[in-house]
């Protein structure tokens, strides 16, 4: 912090050279080189599964590289774990957060690095409060530092994590702390996002930042340099100033945006029969009354920033939350509100965003997970029959091309992509009439992604109605027949996406922001 301004952007503070990492079935990283200068913000972009997170995890010692070296201010280092990496001034804010829920903000900030606050073995609460409050000032968090993490918003948690990392790197006298943010903005609303970037610009005075995001707009606007990864390899890097998004997109995917990526040629027109009818459904504090219809075989994507209320709309449809006003009809039958059981029984499927925790029983076998919903259909004379179980599981494992050693393999041991496909298989097998896909391609590699698109198209052909929220606008545009755009809890605009005549991202972004 003492040398603000004094150093030039030319000096490299962190450098990875020839880093490779192979996971069962996937080459996550292949001889990747990456360098970071002091006082700069680098944007790291790439498709889902390009290897961004893996690269970062290697920097902070969560996983070890199969080959390649990491050097910090010219010295070779090999972080064993995050608490080791932090001593080298390298810290990461995980998407899921690493704060202990039942501890206070204050305790979390200094967890495991408290000695400084000790007097005769006892921690001085005042000292901690002061330090904590000061840090919270910096990151513009108003909550009292003694409130427990379980009671603060995701955004605030992120700020707390950033503050923790800053404090730690100062604590260990790191001249050029490195701050890694993995898709930080996915959980933030507009206001929070602007605050975040203000803070990052401040931090830049004393630290360097690596920013991972799928929102190219914000990358271009808020970074100095953009590094593009593709399929675990370096593609290029370019200065953010006057970088064009379309150009970056092209670098990321390796080809200009052509319809085939989303199999638009296979897109089927919506059927006549209406499957889902939402009648001025509203939830106070989340979204204002909204009405829409989804027809047989129609893919509708719900577009909007986090905080636009689209998540809540879905949670109300599949019964995870109770709406205040309005009603939901499935094939004319009124849904029992606030009951997932009711929704499922009526035929509403839901692929949650957090598969590992909300979509799977990780301790149970692939077969058991695939069959969860259809137990009643696998019965012979009222008893679930093992042969039928195996058969059903086999069918869907093949249908969804799940790579697994055996049907009995524990889901915890499948790769992210295959876990993803397992969740999808589970719902497909249950013959739902409406499927809600919450970021269906989040965290899956390129191959798996193609599979998922193929499956989505197939489902549409079979007449299943789908409501999609995806990671990227391109995906929304590419997949859907129709887009419903939401903003600040209000339904703002509807857009048709017929094959061939799809709207461009720009048109929509205007509506969203």
């Amino acid at each position, binding site marked *: 912090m003492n040398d603000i301004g004094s150093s030039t952007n030319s000096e490299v503070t962190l450098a990875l050279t020839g880093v490779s990492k192979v996971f069962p079935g996937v080459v996550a990283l292949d001889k990747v080189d990456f360098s970071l200068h002091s006082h700069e913000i680098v944007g790291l972009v790439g498709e889902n599964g390009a290897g961004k*997170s893996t690269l970062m*995890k290697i920097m902070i010692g*969560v*996983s070890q590289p199969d080959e390649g070296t990491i050097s910090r201010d010219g010295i070779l280092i090999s972080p064993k774990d995050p608490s080791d990496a932090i001593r080298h001034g390298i810290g990461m804010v*995980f*998407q*899921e*957060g*690493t704060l202990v829920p039942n501890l206070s903000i204050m305790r979390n900030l200094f967890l495991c690095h408290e000695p400084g606050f000790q007097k005769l073995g006892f921690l001085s609460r005042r000292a901690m409060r002061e330090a904590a409050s000061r840090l919270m000032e910096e990151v513009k968090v108003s909550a009292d530092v003694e409130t427990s993490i379980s009671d603060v918003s995701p955004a605030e948690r992120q700020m707390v994590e950033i503050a923790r990392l800053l404090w730690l790197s100062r604590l260990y006298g790191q001249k050029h702390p490195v701050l890694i943010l993995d898709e930080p903005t996915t959980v933030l609303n507009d206001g929070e996002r602007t605050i975040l970037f203000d803070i990052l610009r401040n931090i830049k005075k004393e630290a360097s930042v690596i920013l991972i995001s799928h929102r190219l707009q914000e990358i271009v606007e808020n970074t100095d340099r953009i590094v593009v990864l593709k399929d675990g390899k370096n593609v290029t890097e370019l200065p953010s100033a006057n970088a064009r998004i379309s150009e970056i997109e092209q670098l990321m995917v390796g080809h200009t945006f052509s319809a085939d990526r989303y199999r638009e040629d296979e897109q089927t027109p919506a059927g006549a029969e209406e499957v889902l009818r939402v009648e001025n459904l509203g939830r106070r504090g989340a979204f204002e009354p909204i009405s829409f219809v989804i027809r047989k075989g129609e893919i509708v994507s719900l577009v909007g920033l986090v905080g636009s209320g689209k998540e809540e709309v879905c949670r109300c449809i*599949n*019964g*995870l939350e109770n709406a205040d006003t309005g009603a939901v009809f499935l094939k004319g039958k009124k849904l029992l509100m606030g009951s*997932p*059981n*009711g*929704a*499922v*029984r009526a035929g509403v499927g*839901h692929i*949650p965003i*957090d*598969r*590992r*925790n*909300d*979509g*799977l*029983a*990780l*301790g*149970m*076998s692939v077969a*058991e997970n695939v069959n*969860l*919903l259809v*137990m*009643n259909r696998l*019965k012979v004379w*009222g*008893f*679930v*029959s093992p042969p039928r179980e195996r058969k059903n599981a086999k069918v869907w494992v093949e249908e969804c091309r799940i790579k697994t*050693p*055996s049907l*009995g*393999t*524990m889901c*915890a*041991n499948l790769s*992210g992509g295959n876990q993803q496909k397992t969740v999808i298989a*589970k719902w497909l097998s249950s013959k739902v009439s409406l499927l809600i896909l919450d970021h269906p391609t989040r*965290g899956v590699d390129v191959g798996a992604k193609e599979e998922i698109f193929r499956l989505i198209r197939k489902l549409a052909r079979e007449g299943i109605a789908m409501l999609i929220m995806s990671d990227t606008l391109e995906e929304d545009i590419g997949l859907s027949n129709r887009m419903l755009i939401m903003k600040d809890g209000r339904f703002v605009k509807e857009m048709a996406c017929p094959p061939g005549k799809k709207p461009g991202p720009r048109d929509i972004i205007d509506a969203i922001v």
Partner: protein
Amino acid sequence: MTEKKTAVAGEGPGTAAARRGRLRIPTLSYAVALLFLVGLVFSLGNGNFITGYNLSTIISYAVLLLLVGLGQMCAILVGGIDLSVGGVMSFVSVSFVIVVQVIGYWAYPLFILVGILVGYLNGILLTRIRIPSFIATLGTGGIFMSLAMIVAPVPVNVPTPKWGYLDIFNGTFLGISNVIFIGLLVFLLYFAILRFTAVGRNIYYVGSNIKMSWMSGINIARTRNFAFILSGTGAALAGIMVSAVQYGCNPYVGSSYILPSIAAVVVGGTALTGGTGGAFNTLFGALIMSVLQNGMNVVGVDQYFQQSILGMMIIVSVALTFDRSKTPVIK
């Protein structure tokens, strides 16, 4: 927490787990091996250990543990625990003794029903009033213990002329004690429910990831109630059996089964965190416990050391049978 946790847990144990994953019930194999090992040791100690007579002794005692254990297992599988089995057993056994003299065979279905209701009560306390099962069942256990006292201020017994009603448990078939057949029957019942019915399967789903189960439309309330009903029923059956085989009983009978029932379940390889394990595990758990207790007498281990050795053995067996790959954190 997700990605990070794979990275932390996933890479190391993950591979080991993958190898285990292929086995259908991995933990079971350990339990079986352990059972035979212990059995072997004892039969070397005294030839009479493996006489048919002693084996039937072992099994008859195991049956009792098995009945309570099967119930307890269901509560544990669904992610809870049932400390009321002791009180329920006591209450059922004494009331059964009194009632069977009046209404004869009807007492059997009646008290199985009582077990069901008690289990349902525990379920409701958990799912509706939302009290952790540990506390709820600790409380109801005390309540039923008191009821047992009130019902039977002195040990009660069935007068000889009415013994006929209890022959079901005391007769033999093909020279084998009925108790063993009854135990087998109940075992198969629980096995079938857990393995072949939707709600039985849901017990596993709920036990291993309750949030996912809820989001998948499983009626978690109904499932958990059902698990506790199975638990109450097991305790009730055990209570009935106790009274039947000794033509009477005292209101304390259940109190010595609370911890052993849990021990039997866990020794069999069922995880206290829920979701993994099953009827076979509990069967072998009960057998192991029974074999240890019987064998120590047959080979003449000094009374003074028996309890200590039993304690040592349950630690050893769990160290062997516990499948750590499925429970990243062990509490």
